[in-house]
């Protein structure tokens, strides 16, 4: 059933359902994420749907700094997602902790708790950058599935 596998891989690249977790963001990034769903950007044309349930999701969007309280919730949500899955860290805080990186309660970026596939920098990033982040995450999934070769240099986003 090689054919069915090819079809499934096509489906994987054409319908990434995202779940959004706000890890203590200031809501700047969250508003930009929700802006992607509006008629101006309309991510549904790429098959992207914002679901409320990690069990149905393929891509986890995380915004905000990770602290010692919510790292448990973040890990829990990640574990509830079925493979294959990807994680996108959004905004300066999600990348490294941002301006809060040396606070006593802050663990740091999302990658301190769960593996991150794509980093979308900005404070906050524009909706176009977030959509591009999902597209790059799909490229990563392609590499994971063996459909594409890993590029020699990841010139995707500069931190």
């Amino acid at each position, binding site marked *: 059933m090689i054919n069915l*596998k090819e*079809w*499934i*891989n*096509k*489906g*994987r690249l*054409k*319908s990434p*359902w995202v779940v959004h977790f706000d890890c203590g963001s200031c809501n700047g990034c969250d508003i930009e994420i929700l802006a992607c*769903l509006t*008629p101006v950007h*309309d991510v*549904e*044309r*790429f*098959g992207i*749907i*914002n*679901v*409320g*349930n990690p*069990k*149905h999701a*393929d891509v986890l969007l995380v915004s905000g700094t990770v602290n010692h309280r919510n790292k448990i919730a973040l890990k829990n949500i990640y574990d*509830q997602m*079925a*493979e*294959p899955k990807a994680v996108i860290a959004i905004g300066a805080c999600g990348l490294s902790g941002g301006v809060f990186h040396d606070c006593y309660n802050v663990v740091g970026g999302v990658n301190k708790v769960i593996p991150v596939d794509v980093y979308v920098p900005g404070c906050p990033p524009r909706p176009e950058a977030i959509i591009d982040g999902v597209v790059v995450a799909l490229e990563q999934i392609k590499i994971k599935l063996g459909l594409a070769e890993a590029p020699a240099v990841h010139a995707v986003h500069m931190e």
Partner: protein
Amino acid sequence: MMILGKLLLGVIGLALATFIGGFISGLDRKITARMQSRFGPPLAQPFYDVLKLWGKAPMAVNAWLVLCAYLTLMASALSVFLFFAQSDLLLIFFVMTIGAVFQVMGALSVNSPFSHVGAQRELLQMFTYEPLIILVIIGIAMHTGSFSIASIYALDTPLLYSMPFLYVALGIAFTIKLRKSPFDISASHHGHQEIVRGVLTEYTGRQLAMLEVAHWLDVVLLLGLCSLFWSTSAIGLFLLLAVTYFAELFVDNVSARLTWGWMIKRALGPGVALAMVNLLWLYAIK
């Protein structure tokens, strides 16, 4: 030979219904997007979704959930098969009900409160649409003198002329079964997040894919029931279905989600009243 022909018709109908159901779902999402001045996903998007879900790693909470997903899909497929084999309307209705009941049983077999709330609301939705569909079937039997679909195709005037109010009642039942606003209270559609998709919360991966296909088949079955109201010409049948489905989409986009109490008061009450008026009329002209 007759029976063999009918079985063949059922199998071909079922295979076609799966594809047509998927494309109707895609068209639904496309037209909904255009109504909201968005571009919308490609027409084949539901197929991509189902293929992707089929390829997800298994994460079922318990064995009941898996069994219930299989039984829901089988019941939906069997009811569509029976419809295209021109079987008995009552039998089709009971088989369809089995599918809906097993979906609720699966949702109740887990501990998630979202799943439980969704299951209770799904039962209330069934409580609302099932009497309406039964009354429509009774109306058809009063008019043609038989519960068989073949007897409807033997008519030379469309059923709609003698059962207009029952068609409206069927439309209400169709909206509830489609889970369109204002009745998307047990499990909302794509892009909405009412109680984390309620009755579907705990179904993941393959199970969710199977329920999605079962939903397509249910939509085709309900459209099939609507098509019986204009069985005399293909063009009339197509126009009736197109107008009905467009009306469903329009109602979905102009109305808000309402509560189950409102649904029982404002959908079941008037629906049964309309159906009763039509049944009395059928009785009077006999």
